[in-house]
């Protein structure tokens, strides 16, 4: 296994190729906001975005900045700050291809990828327009059903993202990443071919050294590169470490409703200045 590299955020995102399948995790769990801003600065194009299982601020930003060709999602929203305006506009205009999913389908397909399974079944979903619009999903009759009983079951193809982009609380010097209760970070990293991680801080302690910390750690075997990004989820929250910056998200939600205002937002909050200054600029 190659050793985990330690890079700057802008270096880290050079490892995300144009047109790749990119997975990012839902707001408040592991939203890679600063890495996404760096991706936009880098001018990435044609991403096939998978939100795990839902998207928020980083997804809306990436879509608005024309970096995204398609999105598979169970929902993109700014939660209490309303719908995700750039996402809504891009879907309505047909600028991005939308593949609507449902949360457990995203998780199950990634778990199939993690296990190297070709597909995985899922209960529910049948008869919905979600299922009807996914020609990449199949329905078979459960071969384990009692004789004569018809029991149609949805099958999902396994998902193995080209790149997983994760933001976590901390990593150690060896490249091990603390995921805590947010085990979806591990699931996505296991399933992905390349995992890039930003962290609030890099600690001296070896997270694998004690059973207590190892239990919530993603080992460096799955981690290709790490960059430190203090407040890297901002303006989204990060677990119980920090909450949302409501003032900024409100500002964003308003700006993203209008094309020009969104462009101004990109100039002011994405293309320049480090995060700390942006937080000040809102406050």
């Amino acid at each position, binding site marked *: 296994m190659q050793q985990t590299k330690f890079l700057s955020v802008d270096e880290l995102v050079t490892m995300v190729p144009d047109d790749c399948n990119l997975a990012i995790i839902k707001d408040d769990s592991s939203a890679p906001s600063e890495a996404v801003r760096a991706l936009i600065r880098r001018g990435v194009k044609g991403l096939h975005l998978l939100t795990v299982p839902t998207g928020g601020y980083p997804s809306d930003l990436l879509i608005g900045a024309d970096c995204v060709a398609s999105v598979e999602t169970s929902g*993109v929203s700014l939660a209490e700050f309303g719908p995700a305006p750039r996402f809504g506009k891009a*879907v309505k205009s047909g600028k991005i291809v939308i593949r609507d999913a*449902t949360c457990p389908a995203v*998780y199950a397909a990634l778990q199939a990828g993690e296990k190297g399974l070709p597909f995985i079944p899922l209960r529910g979903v049948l008869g*919905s327009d979600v299922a009807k619009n996914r020609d990449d999903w199949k329905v078979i009759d459960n071969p384990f059903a009692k004789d004569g009983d018809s029991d149609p079951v949805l099958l999902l193809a396994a998902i193995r993202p080209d790149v997983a982009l994760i933001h976590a609380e901390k990593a150690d010097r060896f490249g091990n990443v603390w995921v805590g209760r947010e085990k*979806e970070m591990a699931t996505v990293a296991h399933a992905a071919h390349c995992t890039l991680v930003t962290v609030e801080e890099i600690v001296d302690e070896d997270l694998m050294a004690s059973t207590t910390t190892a239990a919530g750690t993603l080992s460096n075997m799955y981690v290709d590169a790490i960059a430190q990004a203090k407040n890297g989820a901002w303006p989204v929250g990060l677990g119980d470490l920090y909450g949302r910056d409501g003032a900024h998200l409100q500002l964003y939600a308003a700006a993203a409703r209008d094309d020009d205002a969104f462009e101004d937002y990109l100039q002011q909050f994405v293309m320049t200045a480090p995060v700390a200054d942006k937080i000040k600029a809102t406050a």
Partner: protein
Amino acid sequence: MTCKTEELLISLIAPHLAECRHICVGVSSPIPGAAAQLARCKSNDRIVVNLLGDFRHNSFTSGGQEIFDMAGQGRIDAFFLGGGQIDGQANINLVGTGTYPQTDVRWSGSFGSAYLYYLVPNVILFREEHSPRVFVPKVDFVSAPGLSPPEHHRVGGPKCLITGKAEFSFDPIAGRFTLVSVHPGYTVDDIVQSTGFDFDMPDDVPQSKEPDAETLALIRGPVAEQIRGLYPVFADKVFA
């Protein structure tokens, strides 16, 4: 009405949860969250409540998939769903209006509804806005159907619909809603006018029962306290 609308709704939802062992509540759902906490208070803490999005106070330690796995295991007794559109067969639409995929209005997406609606025995439909644009004859996109054909594995589904104006029950055999009660300040005719789908009703539709003093004390006391951590803005507004 001697209480706020939010308090009425909380008190109307809670009795539907009384027999539950475990209630999950989705993100951005202060009224369902408060109703679940009220049911928990009334059960002397027998009922377990997990609020999604509450990083400090929930039982999940295995990641985002755990709630869906738990539903698959049969360990979740009640959940709440809403919709940008809900129709008379209890189909819900969280995706958008018009023709998919380039819908006229695009909402967020179906989230977990296309799964939980099938697997959680008691799904409470909750939508405060009670208008013909929400309650439509037929949803434009079925995020999750209210009913499934018998060969589809389904152990869960809609039990009732609670809105800002009324309460309905749902009959899965008939595939229809029945008006149960109308909230103070509204008439049956208001409900008919605000509801785009056809529904049943008894000859005499009672008024929705306001919370008694004991219930109101619970809502304003321990329930408000429990909900404040996750929903401070809501708590300030309703329980100020």
